[in-house]
């Protein structure tokens, strides 16, 4: 066997590495990007050649890869005040950017709610859940059905949506939680797909792909924010109408809910349950030897995580006024999981910043809508490779002994 001598010249090695990547990219893009199958007038596919594309891609891959090796490893400085800055940022966002900022902020908060719930499952208990969006869907559809079919108000449906999702989590958890990590990931992925397929095909209950419309907006002490409705806050209290009032009310609501969920999780993780979860995450065998019941603990994590997803789903349904299976695809699960992992799996502070960075970044590239998902996918790889421990924070035990 030939042992190649270690490359002593880092610059040469970097060039060789970048060259290898450019060559791979060129070979692959030569057919995949350079030849496009296009239908002609008779709808038969013909090949159309774009010879410049593979060259352009290979050149950019070479340049980026070379630049990558020259850039020193990025460290995000974590100041002890980072949490306060994050909270201040989220609170101030709408005042800084107006209506668009409100919408982005709402999106960030919704994902932050979801990520905080998933953090219990993935970050604290160490269970890999790829079908988290299923519980989000259960919450959203429960709200939609209860309000439009059974005549519940949003506030009556809201806790029920959480409980319904928790029940779904509990029922799924019983059979699957004995599985090892990767198997669990795939089963939850399958479960997420089952829920989506059922929502899509159970016409009589869910109205299939068309979804459910007419979900009432959440009210404030019985008032709503419509201009002329029977309970309009503007008409009844003789206030001047403002189109911004409703988004601001939603934003406040989302902020309050997110804060509540966050406080609940912070309390949980410092209590006996949270400590047991972290023990389980670090070493299941050791935890079991110390008398902890892994199945029960995992079930608790799964159920609680699902509960918070259900609440987030209820909020999502009420904000949109509309739900359809399209909103609950695997890419949502992937996005939430990416936020949790990039936030350093377990750190709530990290998750807060990861949600801001990822959702905000996602919105920034909205103008390149078609390239958005491609960039997202590549960014996931790059971040995972560059900072495998998470983009922002490093996981630390919540409680430690002081000697």
């Amino acid at each position, binding site marked *: *066997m030939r042992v190649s001598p270690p490359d002593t010249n880092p610059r040469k090695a970097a060039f060789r590495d970048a060259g*290898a*990547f450019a060559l*791979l*990219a060129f070979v*692959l893009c030569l*057919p*995949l*990007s350079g*030849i*496009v*199958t*296009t*239908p002609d007038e008779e*709808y*038969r*596919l*013909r*090949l159309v050649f774009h010879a410049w*594309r593979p060259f352009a891609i290979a050149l950019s891959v070479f340049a980026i890869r070379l630049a990558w090796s020259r850039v020193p490893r990025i460290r995000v400085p974590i100041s002890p005040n980072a949490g306060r800055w994050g909270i201040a940022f989220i609170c101030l966002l709408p005042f800084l950017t107006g209506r668009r900022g409100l919408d982005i902020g709402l999106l960030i908060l919704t994902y932050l709610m979801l990520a905080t719930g998933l953090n219990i499952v*993935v970050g604290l208990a160490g269970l*890999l859940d790829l079908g988290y969006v299923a519980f989000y869907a259960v919450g959203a559809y429960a709200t939609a059905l209860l309000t439009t079919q059974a005549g519940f108000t949003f506030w009556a449906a809201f806790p029920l949506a959480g409980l319904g999702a928790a029940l779904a989590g509990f029922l799924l958890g019983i*059979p*699957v939680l*004995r*599985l090892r990590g*990767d*198997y669990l990931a*795939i*089963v939850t*992925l*399958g*479960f997420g*797909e*089952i829920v989506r*397929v*059922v929502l899509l*095909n159970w016409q009589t209950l869910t109205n299939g792909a068309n979804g459910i419309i007419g979900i009432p907006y959440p009210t404030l002490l019985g008032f709503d924010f419509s201009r002329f409705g029977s309970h309009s806050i503007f008409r009844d209290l003789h206030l001047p109408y403002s189109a911004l009032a409703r988004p601001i009310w939603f934003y406040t609501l989302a902020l309050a809910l997110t804060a509540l969920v966050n406080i609940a999780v912070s309390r949980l993780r410092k209590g006996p349950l949270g400590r047991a979860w972290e023990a389980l995450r670090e070493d299941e*065998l050791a935890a079991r030897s110390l008398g902890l019941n892994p199945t029960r603990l995992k079930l608790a994590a799964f159920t609680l995580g699902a509960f918070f997803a259900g609440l987030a789903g209820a909020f999502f349904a009420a904000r949109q006024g509309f739900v359809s299976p399209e909103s609950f695809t*695997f890419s949502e699960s*992937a996005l939430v999981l*990416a936020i949790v*992992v*990039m936030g350093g*799996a377990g750190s709530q502070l990290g998750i807060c910043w990861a949600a801001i960075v990822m959702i905000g970044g996602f919105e920034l590239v909205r103008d390149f809508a078609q*390239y958005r*998902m*491609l960039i*997202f*996918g*590549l*960014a*996931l*790889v*790059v*971040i*995972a*490779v560059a900072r*495998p*421990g998470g983009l922002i924070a490093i996981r630390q035990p919540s409680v430690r002994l002081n000697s």
Partner: protein
Amino acid sequence: MSYALQQLVNGITLGMVYGLIAVGYSLVYGIVGMINFAHGDVFMVGAFLSLIAVIACSGFSVPLALACALLFTLLLSGVLGYAIERFAYRPLNRSHRLAPLISAIGVSIALQNFIELSQGARAKPIAPVITGGITLLTKNSFQAEISWAQIAIITVTLIILGVVSFLIRQTDLGRAMRAVEQDRLMASLLGIDAQRAISVAFTLGAALAGVAGLMFLVYYGVIDFFIGFTAGIKAFTAAVLGGIGSIEGAVLGGLIIGLIETFWSGYGNAAFKDVAAFSVLILVLMLRPQGLLGQRTAEKV
């Protein structure tokens, strides 16, 4: 009767396609212990490579065109598998379990959107490449038929699986791969290039998935950029069902999943056929987590 026979033939053909993809999952899981989440999308890219090759070779005779497409897809899918391993997984060899998974999800999303961008989002139909077949049974005016395309798919799959099985069992390369699978550190100490074995597993698995893409194209005649996701999960189900890490198991699992799917569509509600496949996965993992042909491994402390 002839209807059931027809479903059986269709199920076996579909099962062969799932089996080919499942072998790739098994190879990679066996050697690095990770679920290659982007594997389904490699299958999808393979189908697109075949599409391009089949159209480019449309002037040739059918067997020659298919042989060219097979070779082209096999090679380039293999290159894709190698590139993915080198770009997205190799730097993460020794890190926490979550990071490679996130990386793999990223690759999957990137591949899908790359194909959507470069080849367009519309479904790509082609005229049937292989036509005709043999009538097996006629009863109540229903003909059970095995088409030449199905015969070709089954034969080629069996040949390829035979070759792979031989590679892993009999050659030095296969021995090295099995050694790394058992104990990577020990194998490295004994002079085996573990990194090379891992690269080979990814390349080989991807090449097989690419061939499965060609089969899919020939069988269904239409592909789009999203076929990889469901096919990927089902093939993974097949791999787990058969016992992950075992090639025969992967094929057996693929056959079972293919049969369940076609019989479910034939006799039940076709809209819920994916639900049937996933339910089987959940049941298998509950009742026999090591799979049909897998061995239960003791947990190391």
